[in-house]
């Protein structure tokens, strides 16, 4: 036990001897978190619209002002030529072209269906879908106004109506910061622990100082544990600092038990660090390790459900996520912080994380050879 303690002390001294790393470990995640969290949102604030109004009747103007009244659409330009509008779309100056052809107003007044054309920039498919949905909403309102105004022109018996009330629990206003903070914090902590722990071991190999440890009676598991613990502690400190700042800067609600969150994070860090050390046992150079780490990290992050819902992934990808520790962390972080889930609700995730952690640590210990 004392051996481990001394080894851990040695690691701490080594980590903080490099002044840059010593500071960056704490500064980088916190600065990035503060900058990145408010940036990330799927919410569409304004879609730039270009109008081609070839009709110029009260009806077409009514539709345009209805569109202007919506908070999502911003009238950027108006033109009469389709070509000019398309150029604007090409240039990225507008994302929606609304073309009202001549005769629109006449059709409406005489009780026919008015036709309009919408061209949407669909490179970002989800934005395009939302734009289309909002546009439909505006048209629906406009329709409704016309029907109620001209009830005698176009008599329609309204059918049975179902009124739908939407409620969002745990995050009434759908604040994206609440959603992103636990995720971004988790990723930063992962990146730091994973990279530094692995690099640390490979560096000793590359420089040759590992030989000095190998000739001592230090046991394999002692060595691996001593490499893990400092980064586990650093990771937890980062997490704590991030959460305090998140609370101060963004007023993130904290519904669940803090102890539970830290317990889960500790298990998670053990898993990630175990994996990092396992990879580092068969990389010869820091460059090699870094590439493998980069590869795993990108996959872990993108498959973790931080930006996109896990349920939309194909079945095989969801199965692969069984061994993705970051996916568990995302789920646990959000459930505990925002919903106040208890240890009962997330027991399955915790068990899986523990199993992953044990497997990775054992692999790392077994794979590490004291003979070169």
């Amino acid at each position, binding site marked *: 036990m004392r051996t481990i303690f001394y080894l851990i002390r040695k690691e701490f001294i080594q980590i903080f001897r490099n002044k840059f790393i010593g500071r960056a470990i704490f500064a980088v995640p916190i600065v990035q978190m503060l900058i990145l969290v408010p940036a990330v949102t799927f919410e569409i604030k304004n879609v730039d619209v270009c109008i081609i109004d070839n009709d110029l009747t009260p009806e077409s103007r009514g539709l345009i002002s209805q569109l202007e009244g919506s908070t999502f659409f911003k009238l950027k330009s108006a033109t009469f030529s389709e070509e000019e509008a398309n150029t604007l779309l090409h*240039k990225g100056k507008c994302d929606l072209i609304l073309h009202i052809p001549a005769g629109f107003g006449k059709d409406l007044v005489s009780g026919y269906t008015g036709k309009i054309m919408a061209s949407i920039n*669909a490179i970002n498919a989800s934005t395009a879908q939302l734009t289309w949905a909002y546009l439909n909403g505006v048209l629906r309102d406009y329709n409704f106004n016309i029907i109620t105004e001209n009830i005698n022109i176009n008599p329609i018996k309204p059918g049975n109506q179902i009124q739908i009330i939407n409620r969002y629990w745990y995050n009434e206003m759908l604040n994206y910061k609440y959603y992103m903070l636990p995720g971004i914090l988790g990723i930063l902590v992962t990146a730091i622990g994973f*990279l530094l722990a692995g690099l640390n071991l490979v560096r000793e190999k590359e420089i040759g100082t590992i030989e000095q440890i190998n000739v001592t009676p230090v046991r394999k598991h002692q060595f691996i544990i001593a490499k893990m613990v400092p980064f586990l502690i650093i990771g937890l400190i980062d997490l704590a600092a991030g959460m305090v700042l998140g609370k101060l800067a963004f007023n993130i609600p904290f519904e669940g038990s803090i102890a539970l969150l830290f317990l889960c994070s500790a298990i998670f860090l053990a898993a990630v660090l175990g994996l990092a050390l396992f990879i580092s046992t068969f990389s010869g150079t820091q460059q090699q390790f870094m590439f493998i780490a980069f590869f795993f990290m990108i996959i872990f992050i993108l*498959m973790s459900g931080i930006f996109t819902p896990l349920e939309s992934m194909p079945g095989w990808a969801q199965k692969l996520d069984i061994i993705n520790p970051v996916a568990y962390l995302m789920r646990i972080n959000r459930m505990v912080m925002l919903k106040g889930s208890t240890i009962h609700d997330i027991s399955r995730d915790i068990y899986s994380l523990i199993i992953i952690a044990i497997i990775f640590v054992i692999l790392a210990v077994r794979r590490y050879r004291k003979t070169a």
Partner: protein
Amino acid sequence: MKRFLGFVKKEFLHIFRDYRTLIILFGIPAAQILLFGYVVSTDIKNAGVAFLDLSKDEITQKISDNICSSGFFNRTDNLLAYNDIDKILKKGKTKAVIVFPKNFGGDLINEGKAILSIIADGSEPNTATLVTNYLTAIITDANREMTGLSPGITSIIQPEVKMFYNPALKGHFMFVPGVITLILILICALMTSVTITREKEFGTMEVLLVSPLRPVQIILGKVMPYFILSFINVILILLLSWLVFGLPVKGSIILLLGESMLYILMSLSLGILISTVSSTMQQAIFISLVGMMLPTILLSGFIFPIENMPQIYNWISSVLPPRYFIVIIKNIMIKGTGFMYIWKETLILTVMAAVFIGLSIRNFRIRLG
């Protein structure tokens, strides 16, 4: 010149000797393109919903059947009381609960009006919005079906929509440009910064500096192999996205390759700059990976459109090179526009490359320590 070629050859030998790195170098982009294409999507598929049906009549039955057979939703549970809602949402598998109040069907038939509520899990705002939108649409359709009204009759304006550039609304159009941008800058910056700091850390830089090679030649020689490898990588990614996802390059391929070269050059000079300020490989890796990965993913417009961010992020992201390259690549690949549409972005990238090179030359020291 002969000396320089000899040096480049040495660098190539260095790279090829480490075959594991080489495999990863080409494996990463391939694996990531495939992963993105098949895995990352924001559509709703099989989202879990639960029902709290206090009415239990034909109409609520019909609505819940329609929801479950739509292909978007899976029934996770039938709840019995209001208290169960919190419990099931906390488990995380259920994204929304649909509550039919008592006598829902009766109200709808007798009074022509009934209220139901959708309680969605707001801890995932994007999923919550999508789920409620989809549910609302399905319920409205079900209602129309039951009352026998055809969907068009209530609307007197008929919009016709044209989805430009991406008629099938595929996600690939968004992520292929993003992946190329992300991978190129990270790999280029990483590789050059590491290979130069490595020589520093091991002391072999001294050997190079006392050789008759000039510092510029050393740097160029270091960068040249990675320039070629990265360029091959670009071609590989473009081929993959064409073969696997059928995403062709609409505009001029020569222009695209030229712009890629500029971007690679810019990333490599960023790598050189990082190497001049870091003394150990660890430090170089930390800056290029931890420092750059998340900002590149989040602030470049790769996943999250910059227009939707608060104004200040428009300024912050304007110093990030990936932001411009994504615009360039989207313009050439997807919109098929020519150089006239992207000269501004090209100019900015050129200036950035020049600035990075200038700063590196200023920081570069011939003597160590």
